[in-house]
Each structure stands twice: as structure tokens, then as C-alpha cells.
């Protein structure tokens, strides 16, 4: 199974527009220069990679403030899916 944390970070890194060097869990997502369609595509890519549903309506704030929060949320959703499977 893909390591969730590194998988998510790699997907985020593919969308980053204005940061040099490796992503840190503490990096605020807002600081990475993601535009609204980047967030949409990133969410889709994560859902496809881990076969999960991320509850997210673009009319509300993206619930995850940092790289770490998004990683943990995805880890939680993957764990929940594994447990229910």
C-alpha cells in the first residue's frame, strides 16, 4: 500500500507554484500559491489515489490549513475505509 503521507505530499507538491525545496507538514496550504482549480484537481487526485471521498464544497473554506492537516485528514479517511472494508 502506498504510504499515505508521502503520497499526499507528492500530490500537493505537483501543484505548488511558489515554494522552493521540500514541503513541510507545517507549511500553510495558502502559502503554496494553489489556485481554486488547483485545489479542485488536487482533491480529485487524492480521492482517485486513495479511493476515498473528501467532503469539500468549493463554496465553503477549504477545511485544511496546512499540509499536515490535509495529510492527517487523508490518513483518517483511509484508515476509516480500511476499517470498514
Amino acid at each position: 500500500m502506498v504510504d499515505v503521507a508521502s503520497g499526499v505530499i507528492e500530490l500537493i507538491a505537483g501543484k505548488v507554484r511558489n515554494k522552493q525545496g521540500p514541503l513541510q507538514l507545517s507549511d500553510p496550504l495558502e502559502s503554496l500559491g494553489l489556485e481554486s482549480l488547483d485545489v479542485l484537481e488536487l482533491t480529485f487526485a487524492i480521492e482517485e489515489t486513495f479511493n476515498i471521498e473528501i467532503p469539500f464544497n468549493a463554496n465553503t473554506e477549504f477545511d485544511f490549513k496546512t499540509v499536515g492537516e490535509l495529510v492527517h485528514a487523508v490518513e483518517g479517511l483511509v484508515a476509516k475505509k480500511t476499517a470498514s472494508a
Partner: protein
Amino acid sequence: MNRVVVTGLGTVSPVGQSSAAYWAALAAGRTGFGPPTIFDAGRLNTKSVAEVNDFVAADHFDVRQIGFLDRVSQLAVVAAREAIGQSGLSFRNGLGARTAAIIGSGIGGQTTQDDNFKRIYADNAVRVHPLIIPRTMPNAPASQISMFFGIKGPTYAVSTACASATHSIGQAFHLVRAGAVACAVAGGAEAQLTTGTVKAWEAMRILAPDTCRPFSRDRKGMVLGEGAAILVLEPLDHATARGADILGEIVGFGMSADAGDLTAPDPDGMVRAMTAALADAGLAPDAIDYVNAHGTGTTANDSTETTALHATFGAHARQLAISSTKSMVGHALGAAGALEAVATLMALREGVIPPTMNYLGPDPACDLDYVPNEARRQPLRAALSNSFAFGGLNAVLAFRRFAG
């Protein structure tokens, strides 16, 4: 240059299948939202759409005709039949060759397309219906209106997503004003409510889970709709000479493109389109009393449109009555601008402003008068109707109450 008046209106909408029924519903604040019934939503999350859900093709067409018509063309032809009937014009004579039909559609015959692909990919069909191509093409509504009513002048579709119908009416207005055609039939049609299309909209994560609340706090996005609306345009002199009932006047049209984000709205593009429409109409900003807003109910559109209204109108923005009829009929994409043109013309004629329904209270980013939850009786001189499309394409029409 001709003054351009409207002498026919036709509407097929989720809240009424004639212009009179549609207008009565808007003035009463009646919404047309409900669970999907005309397409299989079993695997979808969408719980609320605005369907024309009691539309029966056989009430309007014989069996042979239905074979040629996707739902989008059915809606378009029924709306055109009403509009042309109301105008009293016949195109089965010399007038047909000097009349334009410009009909917008965002995505054309989606019911046919969706069904075709399902048969090929999911059902492994060996063969498919021979008329899929001419039913699906986005110009089918324009072509069908041309054929049904004998319109033989400039006839084409305009496809600019959510602004398609506004661009169509605007182009028709300019043709009639310039004298390039004697008359025009213009508007838009959309029938996008299919499983495949709605699934694709869900992926954009901008659909409201409950209802459409434009400009309101706690708004959660748009609700997809469908329908058609058609206007008959002719020069004032032509209409007067034949004693036609003049329903309103189109006085200006403005267009712009953002050349920026694919989907995010841009206040500068909106301002330039509204300013261009005012300039084209020769109207000062303070001559406008009402704006039928694009008002989709998404966080981004409504706050950006509010910013653009402030920038366009300055202090007068606070005097404007602004409403989004999408709060009642949803977002009918390529038909939206035509449905809203009908609403705007009727508002001017009746002196009644249709409300923005489902409004819960102010959002700090939307600080103007949105005529919340109840229609308002108020004499109106002139109005704008805004359409701002994905792809950054903006179109705005200016209308004036016809008072001779």
C-alpha cells in the same frame, strides 16, 4: 439606426411553461427546485435540481418530429412558437429571408449524447440511432427554429456557456439596430440534466446541497436548471406600423473577456461589460433602476459581482434594486440569459421586481439591495441583465421600459 423593440416572448421554465406562467411564478417568489426525476441520479449526490419536469414532448410534437429533436430543441421550439405567436409575425413570406435566428446553447443535445455513450460504453450496443449527430449539435435549436418557422436569414448558435443566450440576444439586437435584418428571433435553450453532465458538475464542487441562495449568507452554490426562452426583436417603426403590442425595448449590449482564470470570476471583466452596455445604450449609470444579476449563488460569483456593481455604479449602486431569478429557476446555463431577459422585460413592463428567494441574511461581501424573499412593486425606467460565463466571457444587456 433602428430602435429595437421586443414584440414576442416565449418561455419554458421550471416554474412555468409559458411567459405568463413564468412571470407569475417569479412575481410570487415560487421556486422550481426538487429531486431529480428526469434522469437517473442513483449514483449521484445531487438532491436538488430545477427541472421542467412536467414537459411532455407529445403535447407539442408529432412522433416523427420528436425523432429529430433532442430535449434541448424541443424546449427551444416550444418557446419560439409562443414568442412568434405573440408577435403576430409570420415568416412564411418575404420576411423569413430577412429574419435572423440566433439561439444560444452551452452544451447542446446532452440527453441524446449521454444516452448514446451509455449504450456504446456501458451496454455494448451494436448500433445506435442514426440521428444522434443532428440531434446533439449545439446549433440544433437554432436550425430547428429556422425550419419550424421558415426563418431563412442569418441563423446560428452562440455557445459561451452561461452567457450564450445573452450573447445571442445581443448579436440579434445589433443586427436589427443596424438594419442588417428586418427581424430577429433570439434566445437560448439548455437541457443539461443528464447523469453524465450532472456528475461532471458535481466534480466542480460548486453545487448547493440544498437550494440556491444568491447573495445570502451561508450560500452553498448553484442549482442546475434547464429551459428555454426566446424573444422576437424588430425595429420600432416596423412594430408600430403593423400595430404590434410592444413589450419593451433593448437599448444596449456590452461584452468582454477576462483573459484570466478559467472559472474564477473577475470584477474587471464584469465592470467592462456593464460599462460597455451602458455606453452602447447611451445611458448614464444613474438611469438604471434594476439589475437582474448573474447571481449564481456561489461564494465567488456573488461577492465578485457585488464588487463589480460598486465599481460600475459608484454611489448609485446603493440605489439599485438587484435580484437573481436563479434563486427560483436555478442555473439554466445557455438558456439563463434569455430566461433573465424575459424576467427583466416583464419587470420593466409591470413595475414589479422579482425577488431573490431563499435569502437568509446579509453577507458582508454582498452589501447591496437584493430584493430579498419578496417581490417589490416599483416603477422602473431601465435595467441591466448580467451574464458571466466560465471561460471568462461576459455579456450584459440594457433594457428600457417602453413608453412610446
